[in-house]
């Protein structure tokens, strides 16, 4: 069976984000680390894709920031 979802938790996992080819990826970014490489990786990828924040039918708990985007593989 094809893998449908990848969850990347934290900066050392998120560096793989550009390499992942599953249809869905969730990247969990920790705001408490001074390391800004994880959000930078996500934003860099987003720049080459298309925002789908409006399609995302998820309203996270207050205090959580979310970004949704689609890229072509």
């Amino acid at each position, binding site marked *: 069976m094809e893998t449908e979802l990848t969850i990347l938790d934290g900066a050392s996992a998120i*560096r793989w984000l550009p390499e992942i080819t599953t249809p869905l990826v969730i990247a969990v970014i*920790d705001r*408490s680390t001074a*390391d800004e490489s994880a959000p930078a990786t996500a*934003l860099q990828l987003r720049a080459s894709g298309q925002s789908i924040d409006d399609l995302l039918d998820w309203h996270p*708990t207050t205090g959580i920031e979310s*970004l949704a985007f689609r890229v072509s593989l």
Partner: protein
Amino acid sequence: VNLAEVDTLYATASTVGQLTAPIELVAVSDIEGARLDGSVRQLEHAVQENPEHWADLLMAARQLRWRRATEPQPTLYGIDRSELLREIIHQCKRGRIVADTETSRIIDELGHHAESAALADNPVGEILIESIEEIGRKDCSVLLGSARAAEGVRQWFDSLGLRVDIGGGRGYANLQIKDQCYCVGNPAIFGLAHIAAPRAHAISHFFPSWLRNTSLPRSEFSRLARGGLDPSTRIYHVGEDASSSATPEHISETIRPEPLWPLPAPSRVANSDEVIARQVMLSGGRSMWLDQDGGWIRILDPLQPAGDRVHLRDERTVAPGTFLILREGATESDALYARSIALLGPSASSVTDSQAAWKSALASKLRILGQHAVVTALECEGVRAASRAPFWTAPTVVRPQADSDFIRLLGWLGLNPDVVVPNANRLRKARSQAATRVREALEDALDRTDLDYLLRQGHVRLDLDLEGFAGIIATRVLAVSPHQHLVPRNDVRIASPDRTAKWLE
């Protein structure tokens, strides 16, 4: 951490900085600090034609200004402060010999103001103590802008019998959630983390009023995100402000001492032995060249749990505060390569022959066509990481990461992938086994190392129980040059002593 605690962390993040609890910015009048700041600016202006001749004095004076901005404790608890003052006085004497009349006057004043600022207690400290007493010691924490400041404040509070949680440098995430967190310094000297993931229901910043930059840093992510945090601030002034009005460039600048980076030579085409690199200043008075082609470097995160502290990281994301793991005198990849070859056993020679074949074919293309033409040609072939081509010739770089890149490269070189790729993969597998062994040995060594000492001191030697891995150091990155240089490939990633790194910490 249980779910209820996670919930509290998010709830705290959503309330801090809202209109009901804005971030308080308390600007405290500080005459001695303001005079020092004025003198440093005058000297910067006077020597702007050739600042490198004045590097020693400028660096030392900026370091003292930085400590005045970030260390609230009385002189007695200012770590190494008298050593720093002696250095400034010494450099002032040296500078006067070559200075013109106007610069001499500025230097005399700077020496005088440095002495006052080093010896006079910081008025921010008094406000800090008053505030702690007011809210109650148990309900607050204090966050400092550097590990040095945190250590000094710890000693000061100990002498007062004041038991308050103290964070500094990167240790803040371990703080308990309190009613109030007092930060010493303006928001610009802290990163985003203490506000974006707060460990208190309310945050106040105390800083001398000559620090003009009162803006809050805001991440690009927050700006774009749904539910993006956008904290508000309220400013208070304490004491008479004697200093004159600020110009816009004074407001936007950062006060953190930056090295005087050498400027790159005019741009030219790299020859085949050169790579693009940035200079990086390291704790312990060292600097090194760090290549910028998307390769990986080993880093240490001392705050992660045991077994998960050592990682590989894209070298371009190395920033101040990152701990690097380096091998003294040589790069780690040589030792790792030797171990991988040993692991291959009898098949080693066929693998090294096959590797040498495609690497020498690529090297001769680079020699004949030049780097630029090779990269362009590979890009046309659809090789995504084409810019890394010059690196692929090194024996220690096993192969391009992506299969498609490797196959296209071999096709372009006219070689048969069916032979080369499996051999390269054998080496890659051996290398990954060797790397795992190194990582385990590093984690073992870290178990025997005082990581609090590392966080305080910025660098430590690790004793690895592994052949070929003597002389490993973990060291904090203090600054990364904004300039890119062309440097010989063999010069990158080798930490060597650098006098100008001394006054950065």
